[in-house]
């Protein structure tokens, strides 16, 4: 279960700065909490988020335990050419999620 919401403008002018919003469903369990019986709850977080624009990495973020559940990551990039923005989240327990969005640049 990994659902994500992506917001990339469908069209942009060449050279325009565009805003990219990503939201992914993830508990981001810190690893510092305990159950009511005192057992440690193991850490389960997203460690890395990468965005590639037509294969070129344009944004990368390392995530840490203090980041809230369902991380919302917003960044900007320059619209250079028509193509695809590919998003990749990886984390603990083999977590891996991929999404992509198309953009038309004129």
């Amino acid at each position, binding site marked *: 279960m990994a*659902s994500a919401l*992506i*917001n990339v403008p469908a069209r942009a002018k060449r050279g325009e700065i565009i805003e990219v*919003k990503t*939201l992914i*469903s993830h508990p981001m369990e810190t690893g510092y909490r305990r159950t009511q019986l005192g057992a440690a709850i193991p850490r389960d977080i997203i460690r890395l988020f990468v965005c590639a624009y037509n294969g070129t990495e344009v944004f990368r973020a390392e995530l840490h335990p203090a980041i809230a*559940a369902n991380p*919302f990551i917003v960044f900007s990039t320059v619209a250079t050419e028509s193509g695809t923005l590919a998003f990749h989240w990886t984390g603990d327990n083999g977590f891996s999620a991929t999404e992509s969005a198309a953009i038309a640049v004129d």
Partner: protein
Amino acid sequence: MLSVRRLGAAVGAVALAASVFAAEIPRAERRSGYHFMSPQTRAMQDDDTANPGMLWVLEGESLWNRKIGAAGRACADCHGDARASMKGVAARHPSFDAAQGRPVNLEQRINRCRIDRQKAPPLAYESRDLLALTAYVARQSRGLPIDLAIDSRAQPFLDAGGATFRRRQGQLNLACNQCHDDNWGRRLAGNVIPQAHPTGYPLYRLEWQSLGSLQRRLRNCLAGIRAEPYEYGAPELVELELYLMWRARGMTIEAPAVRP
């Protein structure tokens, strides 16, 4: 003579103040919790790609179309496209269920359908699947006014809910209306006291880092006044939900809302 008159005036003023405080919020002064939020939190709710509640809506949509239970039926097999068939449903709940002889909330209605039509086990309160389905159904009522049908069968439950709302409980000996009717807009430990209109449930609370139902919120509030919270699905909670929705009648559904 003068002092007696002055005393009389003072008593009159106290009585007047008491009657003013005991009143409901006038219709023109009712505000959704949205009104009391920061611009940042509002922006989060307004943008469907920033609103984390939409993650549950997305999941609810896939559950809506999944065949389950011994009957092997999906919600969509009977109800079709939820965008049409579920429009306004959340704005009418809790609603009176003739078979059970009492009002049921949206979560209970969904579970009733699972048991009776899909022959599937009911989903637990606050489970991810039940929240997702409820969020998906409630989303279809966004922008519609709350419109409960209160007939003679539902009236006693509405009255009971109102009585619970005004009954002092817990170690702090507080009733819901003492904060939410009499002191809304003022601060309680740094937080603005909202008017308690359930316009956006199930909603994403930043404090929870999750979506949650109105009953979860009510149980939080009860724990806050150091009362023993009613169990999920308890008649008292459904009656309270019914009263709160009736109190917010005509206000617009925002589900899934975001709250601090």
